[in-house]
């Protein structure tokens, strides 16, 4: 056979064409009795509807969790979850935490040692001793 082909799968590049927001669901839990949930209850009443309207791609679920601190949980496309306990926080702080969940990718927080990730090795080519000037003593 003159030529055969190897099968593979094309790799995704989120954002090059369409951008898929990685946060797909946020669960918000509140409590009607606990004092730590006062800010959360205000947030749910006043700020959440506007946030939901601005972010139609996130599925929001509000449910009571009586006798517990208020907590917000984000569920991501890679299957991981992030939970933030928002006890004793004001409505504005809770909004900042919710925005944090929305902007996260779902991956673990890790220190990034290489600032640039690329599929291409380099633009001008990697040096090798076989092309170009030969070192002479």
């Amino acid at each position: 056979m003159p030529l055969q082909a190897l099968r593979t799968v094309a790799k995704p590049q989120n954002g090059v064409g369409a951008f898929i927001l990685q946060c797909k669901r946020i669960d918000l839990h509140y409590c009607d009795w606990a004092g730590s949930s006062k800010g959360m209850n205000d947030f749910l009443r006043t700020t959440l509807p506007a946030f939901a309207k601005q972010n139609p791609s996130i599925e929001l679920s509000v449910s009571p969790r009586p006798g517990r601190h208020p907590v917000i949980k984000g569920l991501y496309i890679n299957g991981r979850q992030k939970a933030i306990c928002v006890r004793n926080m004001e409505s504005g702080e809770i909004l900042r935490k919710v925005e944090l969940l929305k902007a996260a990718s779902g991956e673990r927080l890790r220190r990034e040692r290489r600032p640039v990730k690329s599929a291409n090795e380099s633009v001008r080519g990697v040096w090798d001793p076989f092309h170009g000037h030969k070192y002479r003593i």
Partner: protein
Amino acid sequence: MKRIRLDRWATQLQPPRNPRLHLQRCPFSSETRAPRRELQQRQDQIQHQWQHQRRHATTRRKLSSTAEVLGEDASGAPIPPGTLQDGELAASPPPPLYAPSHRRAAQSAKLSALHARLSLPSKLPLQTLARCLIDPSADPRTGYNNAPFAVLGQDLLGYYTSEYLMCHYPRLPMPVLFAAQYAYVGNATLGAMRAEWGVEVVAAPGMEVDPGLLQLKRTVPGNAMMDGETRQLKEMPQAKRLGSGRRNEEHGYRRGMSSRIVFDDQFGDLQSGLPPADARPYPGAAISSPAEDSVEAGSEQQQDALGPVTTPPSQLQTPEETHAITVEAGSASFIRALTGALYLHAGSAASKSFHRDHVLSRQLPLHTLFHFTHPTRDLSRLCDREGFEPPVARLISETGRLSRTPVFVVGVYSGDDKLGEGAGSSLNEGRVRAAAAALRSWYLYSPPDTDVVLPSEVEGAAGTGRAKKQWKPQMVDYGEIVT
């Protein structure tokens, strides 16, 4: 070649442009519009006006099959049998549902979130998106599942991908073209795409599940144990034989590249679902030759040995009779159905930009798809065909010839022009790699972007708009190297 009129096929879902047709508007897009009765009356008025103008008798066309589904009013209450509007079919008992009703589509948060996450146009209703998530294995009735959309969407995705590859890489050989097509729109890629979109799969389909989940009957893994047996499923002999459309179904019999182009699908794989060559049609099938009644009556035993009988298409009505499929196959049919539904509701421009944003944005290094067996032989045939000077391999540089790790950099030259270069740990390896590099550079030639005009950019609706592109004949290569 006669152009396929897809806008004629779409009358089931699009509103009619001709007032002679009955109201065939999309039965699913009524959530914010007037109730059905008012619209029906308005349409009757228009029809009567037209009748007075034209003074012809109207012809009543049959309503589409999806209208049978709606034996109920827009508000959800079933219409009593005696009070039907003019032109609606007689009320039958509401059909059984094996998947969530389309009315729940507007209440599902998952579905609306998916619609927004993919930035789908508002012309595509949520109810159609819900229908795209129902696989034929979950509900075999074609009025309820995504099979009709998937057929259209598969052709669209294949068309856009193949024209992109053929116009940008005119010299790509056929096996590599098949592999590239699979890498862009094959089952494995579409399965991964479904996971990247955050679409979850149900454990088992039913009426009670969320409409935003992908519903299919999942196949049992091959290494699971058969019920009541000590052997695994994958070791049990296959009960059903699949056909590929050829006369001889023996494995690999005369199945070269030309046979694949004629009989197989857009990836060069065997077509599934076709009956084998020796299958007999089911009793009552519409065949051209007369039924052999005398043969049927006499030799029952002989017929069992002849071969399997095809199943009539209307036989499968309940999910218990359908075949289970893999999650990958179900994901692929969902994405194809979404493309088809986008085309029908929002037009060719929307489906084309969907393909560009989700398929072409993926990265595929084509040079990794090549697998050569005799590159030096192929290269010398190529140079002979093109009228170049015969290729000669020359050593450009080397190091460590007598050591444990030598490196030889070899270039293949045709006269004074270097066709390709490769490095290897032996002289022969360097020569072979250089020939392979030269062949890759020949096959992966790409014309300048200014010269590339895709057929879909000038055909159909795209060809009549303001941004109309001027057609330029695209490069067609001489063909593959024959050795």
